[in-house]
């Protein structure tokens, strides 16, 4: 009698196939999609990336942040300065700009991890606010007036669409694919243990502090990547837009409504948020009241989100991370 550990499921294989096809479709967009559609897909990819990074922080790391816009803004600004001020190729600049959030995340974590639970969250908010004020007062980034990415005019619309589509696919691959790989690895077991009970995880030999530190830095880089791509497509950046609370807002809404602690939930939540924003965004304040109340209701009565509801009925994960013991040989 022999046993083996199985992680992949049929639903997982199908999802992987669909994911690969979707990435291929995104990369090939410049040859079949309209400019508007390409822009929408890139925006959606940025939402998914920012939300998934928040999911890793809050859903697994136990680090609730309301200041992820700090990393969106810092990476986007680094990208603008490199490309516009120093003449680096903008697409290379997107890659180089990721150094900024990585370097910044280290001192931020070392300062803020001293704060207990909810205070950590407000602390991240203070940091994002401070960075917004720094950008507003900084001549290098043209202060509160913001910057335009005029260097992009040297590329044709088609070239920009190709770069944007490849970056969007890469962004999804790194944030969603990267999270999936991480959760399937040894570290995934440690993270899941930490999510369920940090004290018990520590007693089993999980170095909770170190793991949290690396999750925080990795989430900063992923969030920054999304910021750099988003503002490269926007072609314009100002301190209030780069360090906007909206980023924290959408990440929290997407993860909570979709279902915290699952990648599937983020995808569902992001699609809902994207279309809600498209269809009801014009109602401004009333739309945001509903969005806020939905977040509130989810936290009060419906903590597992939509994916949790689905999972109760059907056992068919798209990104299976659970290990099951199977008896017998193949």
């Amino acid at each position, binding site marked *: 009698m022999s046993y083996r550990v199985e992680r992949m499921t049929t639903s997982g294989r199908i999802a992987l196939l669909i994911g690969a096809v979707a990435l291929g479709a995104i990369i090939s967009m410049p040859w079949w999609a309209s400019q508007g559609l390409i822009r929408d897909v890139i925006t959606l990819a940025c939402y998914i990336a920012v939300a998934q990074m928040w999911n890793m922080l809050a859903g697994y790391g136990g680090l*609730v942040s309301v200041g992820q816009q700090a990393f969106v803004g810092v990476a986007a600004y680094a990208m603008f300065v490199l490309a516009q001020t120093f003449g680096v190729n903008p697409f290379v600049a997107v890659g180089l700009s990721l150094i900024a959030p990585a370097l910044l995340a280290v001192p931020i974590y070392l300062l803020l991890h*001293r704060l207990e639970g909810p*205070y950590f969250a407000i602390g991240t908010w203070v940091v994002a606010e*401070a960075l917004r004020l720094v950008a507003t007062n900084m001549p290098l980034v043209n202060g509160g007036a913001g910057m335009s990415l005029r260097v992009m005019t040297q590329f044709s619309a088609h070239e920009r669409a190709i770069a944007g589509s490849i970056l969007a696919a890469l962004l999804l691959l790194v944030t969603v694919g990267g999270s999936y790989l991480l959760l399937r690895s040894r570290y995934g077991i440690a993270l899941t243990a930490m999510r369920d009970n940090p004290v018990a995880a520590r007693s089993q030999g999980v170095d909770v502090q170190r793991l949290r530190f690396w999750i925080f830095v990795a989430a900063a880089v992923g969030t920054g990547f999304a910021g750099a791509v988003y503002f490269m497509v926007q072609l314009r950046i100002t301190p209030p837009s780069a360090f906007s609370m909206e980023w924290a807002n959408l990440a*929290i809404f997407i993860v909570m409504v979709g279902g915290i602690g699952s990648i599937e939930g983020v995808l569902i939540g992001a699609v809902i948020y994207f279309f809600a924003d498209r269809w009801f965004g014009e109602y401004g304040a009333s739309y945001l009241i509903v969005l806020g109340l939905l977040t509130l209701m989810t*936290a009060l009565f419906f*903590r597992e989100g939509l994916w949790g509801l689905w999972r109760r009925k059907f056992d068919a994960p798209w990104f299976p991370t659970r290990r099951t013991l199977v008896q017998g040989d193949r």
Partner: protein
Amino acid sequence: MHWIEGIVQGILLGGLYAQYALGMALMFGVMKIVNVTHGDLVILLALIGISFADFAGLGPWSVLATLVPIGAAIGWLLQRAMLNRVVGNDPLPSLIATFGLSIALQNAMLVVWSADTRSLSGGGIQQASIEIGPLFVGVLPLIVLICATLLTGGLDAVLRFTRYGRSLRAASADVEAAAMVGVNPKSVYATATAIAVGILGFAATFQAMRSTVAPADGPFQLIYAFEAVIIGGLGSIWGAFTGAMILGVSQAIGFRINPGFGILAGHIVFLAVLAIRPQGIFQRKS
């Protein structure tokens, strides 16, 4: 002279921040939760007060007298209807719930009162000042500071010497043990939040008299309250008061260096305290 004036202005500003910070320190001390709508409630109460003044012709002191009980009622309701469901070891539910409420509240205020900045007329008291030595000190900021000191002392005395204070400290130390000896945590919590938001009635009146309020201002007040609490040291009422003074002085001096630097100076001092003395100025190392 220039700098002494800055420090005096800062301490007076700190009086207002202390009124924001007291409630936050109290709620965190008892329940270990942060109410993200803390700042939005200041703005909500201020806007209600301004509307009362406009429609019912109330003076600033009558506005204060109505806002404090309204604040207490809102706090009690908030705790009973919502926060009691999310108090616990996991910080996520309470944070997310109040975060969502904060977005809803800000936008609801935008619908009701529009994005205009408004202020409360104080009937001339805003312009009055008295001469102390070589300095002119505004009467209103002085009243705010005295009020803040009395509120801090009063709250400290309630916690130390009353029956309610004892049950609150018991619930804060060990909620299960407190429940065993006859303390009802849910009603203790509801009273604590009622006190916290009731104090915001003072803050709201003075904020609306000293400067202006607009629906989107709440997050800033939340951040100032938070910085004051952390600078002073967690769970200490007088610590929050001192933290508010330090924050006020940092901002006032920052404003004198460069008007764009004032608020940032406060954030920098907050981060510096976190780096050098994370337990806060007042807290002993545990």
